[in-house]
């Protein structure tokens, strides 16, 4: 269990803005004033449709973009505009990423051992060649691959195995924070479960903290401790995974959850899908995240707060 009272915050994102083409007519506010924290050992799920800005957040956090404004603190240290070479190197070691497409994210001309050891080489972590091979073999075994696989090329592997190689590469530098950007959406159902279980086991063994970005809502609920729902670059709701599914407060979250297909024909026959009118967000009212019930935050304007409070009350009555 994550300790939200006294636990350490690994990542603190506050008022992050990431705009593209600033000042031009086609300015895009991909991420607009978003704040959230991730605690040590926690998995924070980020869900939203394509174009909602979830991948942009991940990339801004790992320093692939220069944010327009805001602050990102990693282990208490501000990383936006980080210049110090040594600190930068440490940051790049401590935070790693697992990518969506296991076909595009592995260099087809490199052997598996070189892919996995790339970070080890750059950081000069291996004493000699034997040490390097041993590290690679250990990593491959950790992710459920065979050490014989190390001298093969990516095309010799299936999608699930490739994603395991990607995970081994991310683990090579012993990070404590991993951003997983839709790591399973390109995989078959039976393989998805394998990879998700692997990520969970690794988290337990290595005390990892995850930012898990996805659009498959049922998988996100399964892996995450808390979930943030994004829409059009804004965070609309943050709550514990069970809470957000059982008692969603924001209309968009409700519509998103009602759209998830469930492998149960009886449920599907009676399913009511809720439509969401995005115009409601564009009435120029000032909205900010408000904690409606403990650890359950909703983006609301001053006059909407009572409505959400009423909703939460009604929901808690259902609970009892």
């Amino acid at each position: 269990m994550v300790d939200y009272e006294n636990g350490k915050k690994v990542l603190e994102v506050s008022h992050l803005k990431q705009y593209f083409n600033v000042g031009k007519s086609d300015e895009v506010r991909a991420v607009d004033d978003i704040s959230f924290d991730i605690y040590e050992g926690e998995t924070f799920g980020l869900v939203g449709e394509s174009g909602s800005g979830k991948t942009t957040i991940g990339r801004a956090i790992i320093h692939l973009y220069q944010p327009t404004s805001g602050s990102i603190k990693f282990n208490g240290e501000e990383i936006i505009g980080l210049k110090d070479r040594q600190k930068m190197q440490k940051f790049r070691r401590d935070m790693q990423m697992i990518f969506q497409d296991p076909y595009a994210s592995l260099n087809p001309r490199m052997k598996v051992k070189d892919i996995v050891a790339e970070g080890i080489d750059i950081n000069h972590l291996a004493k000699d060649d034997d040490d390097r091979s041993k590290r690679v073999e250990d990593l491959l075994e950790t992710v459920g691959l065979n050490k014989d696989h190390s001298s093969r090329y990516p095309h010799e592997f299936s999608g699930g195995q490739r994603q395991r190689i990607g995970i081994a590469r991310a683990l090579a530098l012993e990070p404590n924070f991993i951003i997983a950007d839709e790591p399973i959406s390109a995989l078959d159902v039976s393989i998805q479960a394998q990879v998700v279980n692997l990520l969970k086991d690794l988290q337990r063994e290595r005390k990892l903290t995850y930012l898990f970005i996805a659009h498959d809502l049922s998988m996100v609920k399964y892996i995450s401790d808390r979930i943030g729902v994004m829409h059009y670059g804004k965070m609309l709701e943050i709550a514990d995974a069970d809470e957000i599914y059982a008692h969603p407060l924001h209309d968009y979250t409700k519509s998103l959850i009602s759209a998830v297909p469930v492998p149960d024909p009886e449920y599907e026959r009676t399913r009511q899908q809720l439509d969401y009118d995005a115009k409601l967000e564009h009435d120029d009212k000032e909205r900010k995240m408000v904690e409606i019930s403990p650890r359950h935050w909703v983006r609301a304007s001053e006059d909407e707060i009572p409505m959400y409070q009423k909703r939460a009350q009604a929901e808690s009555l259902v609970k009892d």
Partner: protein
Amino acid sequence: MQSTEKILQVKDLTINFNTYAGTVKAIRDVSFDLHKGETLAIVGESGSGKTVTTRSIMGLNASNAKVVKGSLMFHDKDILKMNDKELQSMRGAEIAEIFQDPMTSLDPTMKIGRQIAEPLMIHKGMKRDKAMKQALEMMKLVGITDAENRINDYPHQFSGGMRQRIVIAIALINYPEIIIADEPTTALDVTIQAQILRLMKELQDKISTSIIFITHDLGVVAGMADRVAVMYAGKIVEYGTVDEIFYDPKHPYTWGLLNSMPTLDTADDSLPSIPGTPPDLLDPPTGDAFAPRNEYAMKIDTQQEPPFFKVSDTHYAATWLLHPDAPAVTPPAQIVERQKKYKKMQQALADEAKQPVKEEEEL
């Protein structure tokens, strides 16, 4: 909506692909029927042969595909024996396909109205003006907003969901008897997916077409299908009505598939997964292809391929577990829950069926 009229009968279809590495046994002895107005879902992992099966129905397999045996009867004609001309007049007219990726299945250099009207002009010899008028009607039917003004737009001017609506419009314009939908919503967001699925169901009711729906998402299957066929390593391993497959599955692979999808109420610590990977179809293992990944496998599974065992008139499964001599096994807990639910549902149905009889007695 459904009838028992069979419009498509696939029998013992076996297709090999000759490649440099050897002969890939892509599908083996695939048999199924498609009834008028029904939706048949074919479920399976990538490489299980779903797409090869439907490609052969369209006559679209690659040139290195070799039909070893089998027949594909569409009404009373065998699609496998058709020549190119006959295939061309069937494709897009009587059988149409909705492809997976709306980003690549439209011609980027052609206005969408023209793309929707094209099948009418080609198959029915319709004049351009008339065809465009029908295209406009179809655009409205599939819910493209402001259709009059958008008929001369290009595909890149539309969002993913709208593009898939255009693809559907093209597939529907000739009111085909069969629509093959190959993962039509995989590339879309859940909310858009829900809209497209709803649209497909409505349109199916309107023009009573049959749909073969290919997907690996069991959630989508539960909402769309009347009957389900589960494929593994080039073979159908289980088929039945949607209720039979979801509430009373018999094949361990179906169990594994259902188990490895977290539902919104799956507990947090235990997502069962199917171990291992699908077999290499260059050299399929002897016996049951699923045996190496199957915790319920018996000795016979590694020696002899299981035949289909009948569960009910509509439900068949190819697993030795159904053999009368097989030891009784308990399926995974989640499956037992599903079976319990099924029994309750059937009980409720039976009770309902009894009720009117009682009333008659009282009268």
